């Protein structure tokens, strides 16, 4: 099968959906000629024109609000938010308005829009351009949240997001734009709420999201060298979350660790770990472990930044202790 980059996969998904559905449009900063700073949208304005690939001033709350209004009245806007960190600027329009309108209207109004943004540290971009803020929006009922971990997922999830009748926030890992993966030529969609089992194993389940999927897979390789067989699960969407696949896996392995690049406290790892503890308690041989980013703003210095996020080595080390029953001795 052909291999394309995550960036190309997103570009294809957008192009296909813009072609298919004339009510869709893209709106955001430098999305047209510049094709965004990451060049993900290159070529789209040439095909679809500036009425459907709309450059805005630097006014995130403004264009987010405009997207909500357009969505309520029949469009399907795709909002391009250059950095995930700018979510803080659009929070009112996204969380007080878009997320609640369907519910508040008793199901009469829909807000079918997509916010396409990114996450991920270690790009030396410091505290305001490196955050992984998906937990923040996942907390708000009414918003769906997708976290692709490869070019294949990025394309399939984007197409599903655009066709969904709800506001969806989709986070791409900005360090993965040039990573290639097999992506079929023919059309496909990835349904929301279906996790992928990326590697099968017997001894421990590693549930990893987005940027941390690669970390978990690499950790599984390390563990294999010690004779430990890890199963790696990528939920792909955290709202909705495919609990069933995760729980089934844990029932088999009896151990679990959740890895995510958001801050560890009050975040995704805590949520998924507690669901496993509640619902698979009698199958567990060890406490459910978790590893998120450190609870610190992302530091600029490479010497500090690199230790704030989970690495294959640290994931493997912790998983090893769990499998060997040495967790408490180590504590």
């Amino acid at each position, binding site marked *: 099968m052909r291999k394309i980059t995550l960036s190309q996969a997103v570009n294809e998904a957008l192009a296909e959906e813009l072609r298919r559905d004339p009510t869709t449009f893209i709106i955001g900063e430098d999305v047209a000629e510049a094709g965004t700073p990451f060049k993900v949208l290159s070529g789209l304005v040439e095909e679809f024109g500036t009425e459907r690939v709309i450059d*805005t001033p*630097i006014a995130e709350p403004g264009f987010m609000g405009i997207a909500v209004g357009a969505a309520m009245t029949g469009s399907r806007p795709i909002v391009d938010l250059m950095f995930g960190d700018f979510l803080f*600027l659009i929070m009112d329009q996204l969380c007080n308005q878009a997320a609640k309108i369907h519910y508040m209207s008793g199901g009469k109004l829909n807000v079918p829009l997509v916010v396409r943004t990114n996450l991920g540290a270690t790009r030396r971009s*410091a505290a305001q351009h490196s955050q992984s803020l998906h937990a923040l929006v996942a907390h708000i009922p009414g918003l769906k949240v997708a976290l692709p971990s490869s070019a294949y997922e990025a394309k399939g999830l984007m197409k599903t997001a655009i066709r969904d009748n709800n506001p969806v926030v989709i986070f791409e890992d900005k360090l993965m734009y040039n990573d290639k993966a097999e992506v079929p030529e023919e059309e496909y969609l990835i349904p929301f709420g279906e996790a992928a089992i990326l590697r099968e194993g017997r001894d421990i389940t590693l549930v990893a999201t987005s940027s941390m999927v690669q970390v978990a897979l690499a950790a599984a390789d390390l563990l294999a060298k010690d004779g430990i067989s890890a199963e790696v699960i990528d939920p792909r969407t955290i709202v909705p979350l495919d609990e069933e696949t995760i729980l089934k896996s844990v029932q088999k392995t009896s151990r679990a660790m959740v890895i995510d690049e958001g801050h560890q406290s009050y975040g995704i790892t805590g949520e998924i770990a507690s669901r496993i503890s509640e619902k698979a308690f009698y199958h567990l041989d060890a406490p459910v472990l978790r590893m998120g980013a450190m609870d610190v703003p992302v530091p600029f210095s*490479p010497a*500090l930044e690199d230790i704030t996020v989970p690495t294959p080595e640290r994931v493997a080390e912790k998983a090893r202790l769990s499998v060997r029953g040495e967790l408490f001795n180590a504590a």
Partner: protein
Amino acid sequence: MSASDNKHNREDYLRMYRQMVRIRTFEDNANQLYLSAKMPGLTHMYSGEEAVAVGICEALTDSDRITSTHRGHGHCVAKGADFQAMFCELLGKEEGYCRGKGGSMHIADQSHGNLGANAIVGGSMGIATGSALRAKLQKSDDVTVCFFGDGATAQGLLYEVMNMAALWNLPVIYACENNGYSEYTATAEIAAGSITDRARAFGIEAFEVDGQDVLAVNELTRELTGRCRRGEGPFFIELQTYRYHGHHVGDINREYYRPKAEEKDWKESRDPIEKFTQWLTGEGIASTDELEAMKAEISDDAASAVDYALKAKYPETHEVDMHVFAD
């Protein structure tokens, strides 16, 4: 060039010149560090806009405050920062202004009243206005200058805080550095109407000035800081200027949004340092030799600061969770 106050002394002129050259030299070195892959991440060059930062900051005292932007090295140098600690910060070293935690886009130097650069476009408008409120509450005569770009005028925050600043007569000067572009888009495409008229709508006196003319910028700012200290603020200045490099150091192929001829024209006929050199020599204030000697000295300073920063050590890893909370 205008210089109504000709008794304004030679030392002041030469300090302005020195500061402008220091900014240009700092940026040339920072760009080199990027090109030789010695600097982590990206940075936004201030080259071409020196007369703005220097003209304004030379009208301020150390206790007057500024807020800066992602394109902040110029403001930082102009407000009195030291090369060594700046380069250390750019390289993520322990001796940097922020112990390596901030980097290029977050340098702050409170000893000279620099409240910090900001990676959120428009993110400092509230901070600057709050700093002016503090001065008023404290009954001090400190003035705060809020630097931001033309692109940042699209942020709604500006209009919220200008309204309050005007209502409460705060000693703040909003300094809009209009370099014609916001990232990869020309200002005309993202700004409706007149930028200064927006300030005027709040009853704020607004001025337009040639941002390549350091004396004009300085003269206007001295007048406005004086008036701020007498309780007549806030004010708004739009400064026409130009950035010589790309939006950031990695923005090399940029002809699709900015013609080469335009860049050439600004660099060759409106360079702020060149213009000031001609004025200084023309008025007999300094000789070409003196100015060249000053440049050479600054260039040596920068080289040794870079050298020092390259060899300086990174922060210890235990510092990673220091400074999340104040004691």
